[in-house]
């Protein structure tokens, strides 16, 4: 009953509540969290009105934006283009844009954003829309067969090795850097991300990291708190801060009842089923705190030999953690992929902790499928009491406390211009102008605040006032944005290697992990199998070049 009542909270009702809360609060304070204190007031005085105005289109809680809304936003954000391109300057230029059509977002937004740009500049854009599942294969085929038939490409940073590393992308002109205000990017999206051999290729339009989503009601529940003490657990009952605590809490919750919805209580939710390579990110999120040492930028491969670290004690410990906690997880967990853990379990009221991209936070209050909007909390990924030092082969306990290493999974979407436009200066300028328009500072704020498929990724996106002004609940948005900002700006963030074929490595690992979780291999022997398969893959792709690109992606010479 409670569930059905909760389920009926929709976006409109949420905004009403949020508005009431804001009115009650009276004052909207500037960001005061650790991660946000540095980030407020980033909007320029001149840009402020535009930002405020676009956030009213259509207004949070007033239904999903439509094509006309996207066009309006695109038109209102044309200022930077107009200052660099004269009207009709690109007449006769035709560009081809390849991107995704996930959930009718991505390219659908870009079409709307770019219509006013096309009208103003005179250029025409042709579109290649791809489903997520077809994207990797289409891109790889284009690269391998030398049939790059697009001028602008929406692409994730992990593919930079395949594209930029092979000289297929166009170097970003200096004026684009000024137009999009690259200094506004959060720390981890700055170079080396988006660069190869010192050259910049990418306009970021998204930021990606895994954060920690938890059910606050579990950790405020007095019954569970009493049981925790009664069962002799150390410390107070509260939100776990380390993976060791996550393990303990997950095992403790077995056999207990969900404090809000009354069903079986569960702790952390592990996705044990493959997801086209994307499932590996979730083991990585468990492993980074163990494997990413603050003194070493590498955590997945050795930076000197390209030898996989996936079978070192840190990774094996993360795999073993999953094995240990599986009996405490929902009965069908072996067949749960990340989509299941986030949307069918956590948001639907099953389980109390999950790692995911920002989608869980952005959907928890706005999706009809979510029942946890009022009881959800956010943090960076848990840390670990000790961290494995690959250089010494020992576990270090840091004097600063637990080791935190947020997983910058996927590093977000970006827009790239292909090298094939370089021979035509007019076309090159047109392509970069179009890319700069959709990657602009103001337009990106709108994309972060409304359904777009993109997370916040600029320092200026973390000005809570702007979000509250658009209709978001302050406490909620503060918690959500802090978890994102503190992950992005973490000094020990684990940056994903941008090497060719990275998803092939992940896909192979998924198959082996499935066997480990099904009990066919031990954590160590399964991890050894993954490492062996990765070594083979590295040799197949080309070890020398792979190592060179890996080092470049880590910012090493």
């Amino acid at each position: 009953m409670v569930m059905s009542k909760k389920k009926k909270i929709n976006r409109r009702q949420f905004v009403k509540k949020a508005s009431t809360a804001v009115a009650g609060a009276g004052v909207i304070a500037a960001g005061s969290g650790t991660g946000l204190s540095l980030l407020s007031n980033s909007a320029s005085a001149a840009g402020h009105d535009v930002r405020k105005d676009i956030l009213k289109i259509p207004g949070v809680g007033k239904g999903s934006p439509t094509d006309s809304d996207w066009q309006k936003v695109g038109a209102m954000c044309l200022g930077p283009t107009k200052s660099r391109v004269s009207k009709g300057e690109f007449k006769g230029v035709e560009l081809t844009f390849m991107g995704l059509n996930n959930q009718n977002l991505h390219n659908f937004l870009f079409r709307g954003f770019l219509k006013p740009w096309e009208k103003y500049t005179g250029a025409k854009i042709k579109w290649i829309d791809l489903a997520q599942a077809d994207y990797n294969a289409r891109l790889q085929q284009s690269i391998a067969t030398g049939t790059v038939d697009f001028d602008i490409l929406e692409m994730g940073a992990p593919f930079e090795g395949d594209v930029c590393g092979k000289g297929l992308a166009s170097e970003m002109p200096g004026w684009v850097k000024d137009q999009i205000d690259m200094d506004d990017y959060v720390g981890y999206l700055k170079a080396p991300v988006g660069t190869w051999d010192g050259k910049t290729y990418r306009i970021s339009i998204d930021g990606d990291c895994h954060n920690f989503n938890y059910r606050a009601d579990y950790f405020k529940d007095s019954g569970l708190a009493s049981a925790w003490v009664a069962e002799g657990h150390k410390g107070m009952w509260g939100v776990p801060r380390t993976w060791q605590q996550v393990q303990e809490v997950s095992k403790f919750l077995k056999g207990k009842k969900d404090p809000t919805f009354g069903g079986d209580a569960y702790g952390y939710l592990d996705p044990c089923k493959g997801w086209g390579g994307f499932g590996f990110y979730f083991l990585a999120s468990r492993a980074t705190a163990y494997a990413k040492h603050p003194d070493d930028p590498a955590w997945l491969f050795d930076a000197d030999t390209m030898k996989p670290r996936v079978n070192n004690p840190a990774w094996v410990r993360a795999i073993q953690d999953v094995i240990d906690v599986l009996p405490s997880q929902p009965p069908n967990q072996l067949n749960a992929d990340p989509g299941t853990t986030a949307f069918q379990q956590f948001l639907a009221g099953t389980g109390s902790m999950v790692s995911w991209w920002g989608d869980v936070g952005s959907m928890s209050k706005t999706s009809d499928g979510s029942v946890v909007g009022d009881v959800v909390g956010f943090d960076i990924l848990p840390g670990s009491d000790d961290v494995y030092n690959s250089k010494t082969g020992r576990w270090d306990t840091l004097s600063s406390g637990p080791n935190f290493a947020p997983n910058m999974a996927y590093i977000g979407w970006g827009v790239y211009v292909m090298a094939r436009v370089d021979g035509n200066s007019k076309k090159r300028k047109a392509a970069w102008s179009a890319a700069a328009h959709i990657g602009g500072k103001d337009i990106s704020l709108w994309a972060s605040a409304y359904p777009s498929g993109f997370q916040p990724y600029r320092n200026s996106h973390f000005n809570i006032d702007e979000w509250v002004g658009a209709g978001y609940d302050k406490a909620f948005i503060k918690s959500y944005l802090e978890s994102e900002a503190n992950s992005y700006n973490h000094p020990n963030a684990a940056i994903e290697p941008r090497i060719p074929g990275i998803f092939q490595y992940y896909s192979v690992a998924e198959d082996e992990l499935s066997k480990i979780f099904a009990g066919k291999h031990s954590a160590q022997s399964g991890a050894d199998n993954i490492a062996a398969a990765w070594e083979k893959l590295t040799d197949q792709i080309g070890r020398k070049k792979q190592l060179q690109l890996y080092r470049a992606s880590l910012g090493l010479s």
Partner: protein
Amino acid sequence: MSINYVGTDHIPGQRRTLGKSIILISSVLLALFFLIQFLYKSDSITFGFDNWRPILYMYLIWSVALCYGLLLIKGERGQRVLFVLPAFLFTIAMVIFPLIFSVYISLHDWNLSAFEGQKFSGLDNFKALLGDEYYWNSMLNMVYYLLAILVEYAIAFGLALLLNAQIVARKFFRVAFLLPLMLSPVAVSWMIGKSLMEYRFGPAATLARQLGWETPAFFSTTEIARISMMILDAWTFIPFMMIMLLAGLQALSKEVNEAAKIDGATGWQHFWKITFPLMLPVSITTTVIRIIFKLKMADIVINVTSGGPGGATDTVTSFIFREYRDRSNVGYGTMMAVVYLIIIIILMTLLLKLLNRWMQKVT
């Protein structure tokens, strides 16, 4: 009535020479284009085409020239050849050439991300396949899945007998039983595998709970997941077997049935001694077609379990799909597909021969 045979004697020599010349010139041009492109792509010469498309165009021109040349040379007999030749040339282009090309690709180490592109590797992919536990695991799974056809056949036969009898709403049931076959396997995956069999709220799980299974999870252990997958696939394809068998039952001679009744045969004797033997040819055809369908099983597995847990539900096709789509491993993926094709051809040939011999003995 007499059949007029049209020979080639009446065709002028000049015309025949022209026909032969057209065929010869077009053949030489095709061979030349192919050779140039091959040498260019293997870096032996410096001129050639950017891609192989001109060779395809040349093949089309050659095909037209061949047909026209034969017409000039053979006259009316050439016209008769034209009834078959275009289809043959089309088959070469669309079936035989891709098959040969697949074998060629399978002999290469070709990962789409590899810096050096494709490299000839001889039988390395085959050797790797022999030691690939994932491939042989999925092959073993295929044996389990194929054995399930026996159960499917028994159920389908029972349903066909039922629908062949004079039951109420017979037409309704015939259509109703056919519905699963009309559904896309992807829809079946979501409707049944991910909704009805959902472990918390799915009706199948609720029913299982009421029957005493405390924590019903249909894809949580290797054995249960494999059986669940068999049930999902059977639910889709039993109607196909049923409709084939029903058609066979309806074609049986009524006189034989009536004679058996007059002779006092019991229901079981009637089925086992008369209906079943008479239905053997239909049964074999149905089962063989079903085996071919089963060998291609992939979509349900990909959607519901991705081959898990631990490879328990993997099929050869779903594994090949992962190797291609997720790992861009074109050379190895093609080798797996080629080997699978050869195994299927050998097995099906043996099966048909054995069945043929058995049928001859029985009849």
